């Protein structure tokens, strides 16, 4: 039973977030701080989860993922309600009459500073609730329901076309120069957010264009999955505008972009500095793995990234922990925060990357690593060159 429930921690955290945002004012900031404390502290205190339970009812796990869609709708609703100048759908009034808590009053008192925290808080929740679930679901290319729900979840961060680029681009080119989502040695996370976003969008468009050309179908048509993806996000923006006015629409655009950037931070920490010879198969050594308990539960084993890339077709509940794989600095949120502080990131990651070269790289990859070191702009890496073998 618990083996199923542990993958519902993201539902719980989304519900708490929704309540905290509805309450407004300082509750938003308190929620934000508690969120980080629980995830970082939990990973720090509770160690690893390397269990591999057998699931008799995997369909239940899929339903858990599908449930993210109503939750993300609620999350975005309360967020835009909080910034909108009107009481959208009389939400505040209804809650007041049901509970006696006048959230319209606290909404009035919510200041601009709280809005900034709100944007960051929703942004990170969107990426867990939308992007990570969407990622898992859109890998299931054989299941049309999962694909549909997954793409809508991704559309909330303007990224429905991640379903194209990620599967047909990133998984193919991971750790090579051709992969937009792999951060080369020396790149800062802030540069990566923009570079990976833009290159990823272009890659998705190209993949879709060539697919249609090969099938002798029109590129500018409704068959174009990439165009449909853009329209899905446009539909969401217009819907928000319709119910919550321009303040709501602008705020939604901001949180969607922040959500997308959060995904790029995750991409950054998952493959930073790794190299792969394009002709060698993707192996567990080509991802930074972690088995930290709280991260693994909240992100339904995305943390077991080494196995995910070595065998992309395996659903999350069957991923193995691969304790021998290269390990991230800490849990996901811990590593995420460190990545946002580039000097600290470099201090901790340079030794890890060099250790990766020694311990994991193939002969061909050592040469690529030498080149990556030379181009990195980081002194401690530039000095390390491997002799041709």
């Amino acid at each position, binding site marked *: 039973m618990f083996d199923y429930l542990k993958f519902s921690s993201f539902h719980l955290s989304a519900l708490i977030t929704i309540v905290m945002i509805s309450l407004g004012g300082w509750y938003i900031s308190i929620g934000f701080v508690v969120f980080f404390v629980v995830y970082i502290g939990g990973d720090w205190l509770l160690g690893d989860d390397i269990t591999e339970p057998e699931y008799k009812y995997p369909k239940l796990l899929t339903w858990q993922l599908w449930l993210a869609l109503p939750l993300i709708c609620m999350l975005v609703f309360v967020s835009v309600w909080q910034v909108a100048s009107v009481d959208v759908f009389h939400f505040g009034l209804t809650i007041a009459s049901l509970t006696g808590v006048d959230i319209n009053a606290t909404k009035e008192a919510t200041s601009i500073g709280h809005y900034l925290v709100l944007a960051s808080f929703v942004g990170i929740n969107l990426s867990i609730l939308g992007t990570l679930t969407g990622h898992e679901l859109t890998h299931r290319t054989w299941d049309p329901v999962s694909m549909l729900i997954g793409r809508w979840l991704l559309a909330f961060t303007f990224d429905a076309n991640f379903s194209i680029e990620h599967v047909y681009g990133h998984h*193919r080119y991971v750790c090579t120069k051709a992969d937009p989502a792999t951060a080369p040695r020396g790149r800062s996370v802030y540069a990566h957010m923009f570079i990976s976003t833009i290159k990823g969008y272009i890659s998705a468009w190209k993949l879709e264009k060539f697919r249609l050309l090969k099938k002798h179908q029109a590129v500018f048509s409704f068959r174009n999955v990439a165009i449909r993806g853009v329209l899905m996000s446009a539909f969401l923006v217009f819907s928000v505008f319709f119910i919550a006015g321009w303040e709501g629409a602008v705020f939604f655009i901001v949180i969607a972009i922040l959500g997308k950037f959060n995904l790029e931070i995750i991409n950054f920490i998952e493959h930073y500095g790794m190299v792969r010879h394009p002709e060698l198969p993707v192996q567990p050594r080509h991802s930074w793995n972690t088995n930290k308990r709280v991260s693994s539960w909240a992100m339904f084993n995305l943390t077991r990234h080494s196995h995910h890339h070595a065998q992309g077709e395996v659903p999350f509940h069957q991923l193995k922990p691969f304790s021998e794989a290269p390990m991230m600095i800490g849990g996901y949120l811990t590593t995420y925060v460190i990545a946002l502080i580039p000097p600290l990131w470099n201090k901790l990651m340079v030794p890890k990357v060099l250790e990766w070269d020694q311990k994991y790289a193939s002969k061909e990859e050592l040469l690529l690593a030498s080149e990556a070191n030379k181009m990195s702009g980081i002194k401690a890496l530039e000095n390390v060159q491997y002799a041709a073998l």
Partner: protein
Amino acid sequence: MFSFFCAKPANKLTVNGGRHIATCEPEETLLSAALRCDIAISHSCRVGSCASCKCKLIKGEVKELTDSAYVLSQEELEQGYILACQSVPKSDVEIDVILGEVTAQLAVKECSGVITAQQKLTHDITHLTISLNESMNYTSGQYAELRIPALSSAFRAYSFAAPSGGNQVEFFIREVSGGELSPLVHSQNLLITPVEMHGPFGDFYLRESDAPIVCVAGGSGLAPIKALLQQALKEGVTRDVVFYFGARTQQDLYCTDTILALAKQWQGRFTYIPVLSQEPDDSPWSGQRGLVTDALSQGLTGAEHAYLCGPPNMIDAAIEVLKTHCVQSANIHFDKFISKADLVAA
């Protein structure tokens, strides 16, 4: 009508004209099934994005889990290529695919030539030498597909019987009773007969290592083992070798002088052990009798790397013996010689 409620049947996967066979469990992809059965289809991403596992669908129907048009070229789509990692069979299927790591570097060629020598080695094995109109590069242990248009339209797979060297290639062809090609090879004079050939294929070749080698050959399975050892000799390999050759009677033994000469030149220890299973008790044969796999089970340390080639039953039994003696699966390499008759029986 209630088929919906029944468990779906497993489907058979035939690779490269029957050189390899696998069983696909319901919902299992061709790649997973092949890898589970030790058929080394090259692969990388496993999500239908890299096309490393592309193969040609010859027979049968598959369900595609992703749209292969994202990664295959227009020509490939039109020629019926599919992605092994994204194809679940809906029926028994047959595919053609380039196997193994080495073959990825050696281009598969289609060429033609003529038979320049034909010699009977035993009562059922014929040695063919073919002169090609271009050179053929392969790694010893690999095989080619051969067709003799004057005899039959069928392509059949045979292992190279000597190391790669220019335009000349050699094969040992065992007569399969009721076969479409081999009985004719055996009975007719084929000198100067034109031949068509595709190759090289296969992932059976000597892996780099210092571990001792144990070889087990049966029937015409001697060809790739002999070629592989001859190439190793040229390359100065000094690993110890024990070579078991399983045959029925003395009249089924062949190439004995060649192998003894090889043993003499070999820089490490080289032991050749022919084992006869049906030699009459009163014959003067002083060598080992019984099943080759029983002989194999004596003297294994578990450190050996094994190379097996011959009929499927012999290989299955040999793998069993090797595993019980702690030889790791990753160090057991084999090429099953499967005839059309085996396929019907399977």
